């Protein structure tokens, strides 16, 4: 178990104008599950590959366990990696796949067999050991890939979007499996994903990235409720945070904070505004009210989210009074989109 640290790390690919990873600083804690979250092209996979040693930095350092990794190939770094495609060797059985790193480490056969059995037991795939990858389902392949990573007892796990190849239905169960796996094993893990639900569900801390930089590093609670800038604010949350321009600031509030008057207790700093509802999307567990809001700034299209437990009847094509609590308001400046202090409205 070790800390992964990255200092002033930059990676510039030839032929690209902007760096894929731009002067990044990051440090995990021991045993932490750190998620790198961001849209495609933000540099999260590049960062992971730099930590793994599959790419060399243009400048800056990577340290694992306090030791600089410069000049060391992946196999000297005591890491294990699970790829998006799982990268199972198709011509080898599951057993031989899991065994492969141990053979490379020149472990003798009895030791190897014990470790393979242990890893397979932990992941519940013992009965699948003699099958080839093409005879395994997506979820089973993922577990074989995890077993292969586990068996080396690395200091760090690196996972590159391992759930994106699974059916949507399977993903929730697989996510649960991963979390249990992490709890049992406790190794420092760096996990890359573009799916914010995954990130929020799995991570101890989330590094929200865009364009090669980290926008915010914090717990799921922090990045969700106290976003550092408009990018983080709108990237997390579905539907995203509503933004209304008022003079020289952007006022943000989450859809679930926009509630009909009477449903919520106003606090000091709360605002009451007219909300004209155009359309309602009934999604079962929640209702999305799409409409225009005036009263804070110019007329802006916003979405309000009511849980199904709030059964207040909202008339369509009419304006009703809605309330946002002062504690739920966030303010961002209009140049760089960074958070600024609260105001009164």
């Amino acid at each position: 178990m070790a800390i992964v640290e990255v200092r002033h790390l930059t990676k510039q690919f030839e032929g690209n104008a902007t760096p894929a990873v731009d002067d990044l600083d990051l440090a995990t804690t021991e045993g932490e599950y750190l998620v790198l979250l961001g849209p495609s092209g933000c540099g999260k996979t590049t960062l992971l590959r730099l930590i793994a040693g599959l790419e060399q930095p243009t400048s800056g350092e990577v340290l694992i366990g306090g030791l600089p990794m410069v000049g060391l190939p992946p196999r000297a770094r005591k890491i294990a990696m699970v790829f998006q495609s799982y990268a199972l060797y198709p011509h080898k059985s599951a057993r031989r796949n899991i065994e492969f790193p141990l053979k490379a480490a020149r472990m003798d056969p009895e030791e190897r067999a014990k470790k393979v059995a242990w890893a397979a037991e932990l992941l519940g795939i013992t009965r699948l050991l003699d099958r080839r990858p093409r005879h395994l389902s997506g979820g089973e392949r993922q577990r074989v890939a995890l077993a292969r990573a586990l068996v080396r007892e690395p200091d760090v796990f690196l996972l590159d979007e391992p759930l994106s190849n699974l059916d949507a239905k399977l993903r929730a169960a697989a996510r649960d499996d991963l979390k249990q796996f992490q709890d049992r094993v406790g190794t420092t893990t760096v996990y890359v994903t573009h799916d914010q639900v995954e990130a929020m569900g799995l991570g101890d801390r989330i590094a929200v990235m865009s364009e090669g930089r980290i926008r915010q590093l914090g717990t799921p609670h922090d990045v969700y409720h106290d976003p550092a800038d408009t990018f983080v604010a709108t990237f997390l949350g579905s539907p995203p945070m509503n933004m209304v321009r008022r003079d020289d600031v952007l006022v943000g509030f989450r859809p679930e904070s926009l509630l009909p008057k009477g449903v919520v207790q106003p606090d000091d700093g709360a605002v009451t505004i007219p909300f004209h509802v155009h359309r309602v999307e009934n999604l079962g567990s929640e209702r999305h009210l799409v409409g225009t809001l005036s009263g804070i700034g110019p007329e802006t299209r916003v979405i309000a989210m009511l849980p199904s437990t709030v059964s207040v009847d909202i008339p369509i094509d009419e304006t009703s009074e809605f309330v946002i609590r002062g504690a739920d308001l966030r303010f961002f400046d209009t140049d760089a989109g960074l958070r600024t202090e609260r105001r009164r409205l």
Partner: protein
Amino acid sequence: MKDRRRYLFDRDGVLAPLMLLPSVVYIVALVAVPFFLAIAYSLSDVTVGDPSFDYVGLRNFRAVLKDPVFRRSLTNSLFITAVTMVLVLVLGKILALVLTRDFRFKWVVRFLILLPWTTPVPLAAIAWLWMLDSLFSPIDWTLRWLGLIDGNLHWLGNSELAVVSVIAVQVWRIVPLAAVIIMAGLAAIPQDINDAAEVDGAGFWRKLFEVTIPMSLPVTAVATLFGAVLVFTDMSVVFVLTRGGPVDATQILPTWAFFRGIAGGDLAQGAAVALFLFPLLLAMAVLILRSVRKMEVM
């Protein structure tokens, strides 16, 4: 009625055979017909001097099989092809791995390395003919200069050396093709797998033998088949280098068929010799394709 006819060519059932027709006619007329004609000749006594067709059963085949030159040709064909292909596979694999790396002047190297394959075979053979000349060979000169030999090696005049020379030329010209095909097979291995092997701790040799080679086996097999057919059916190298000599030492099936059938005028015997090519090629192809099927892992 009229409308139906207008759309006649839209019907796949009509269009498909029509589009195939020219090629099929061509192949039937100039491949199938001569093929069966060759079978017919081999069962006859046709010669250039006496073109009358008389059925003689398997007499030609019996005569051919008793002929020591024919037996020599058959073993030579098989031996030369087999040895060539083994060397081609090993060297081709190494060359493919070398060419996947980056190094300076790569395009020049690639150009030069492809020259043996892209040069017309008879012309390449001419270049080698001079290189192996019994008096002026530069190879001999270099060996003399290094003090390793005194006189000349008779590359093409000595029975064993002549076979070696033929094999050398065939290997020389096929390796580039094999390398290119194998390279395509290597490129088809997903980068993820290579990365995973790196992370898993596999060094160069382990990665090569446990990941790269097994995964490129189907393509390698196809390359082998192509190379083997090219060597087995080639006539120009032997013809230009040795004319089958010295004293039939390098005679192979195609050249012997030529000397018997066209130069010697005995069409029937020539056809009989040439026909041996087909079942052997068929056997090679079936063997290799069967193993490719078994190897399908992806």
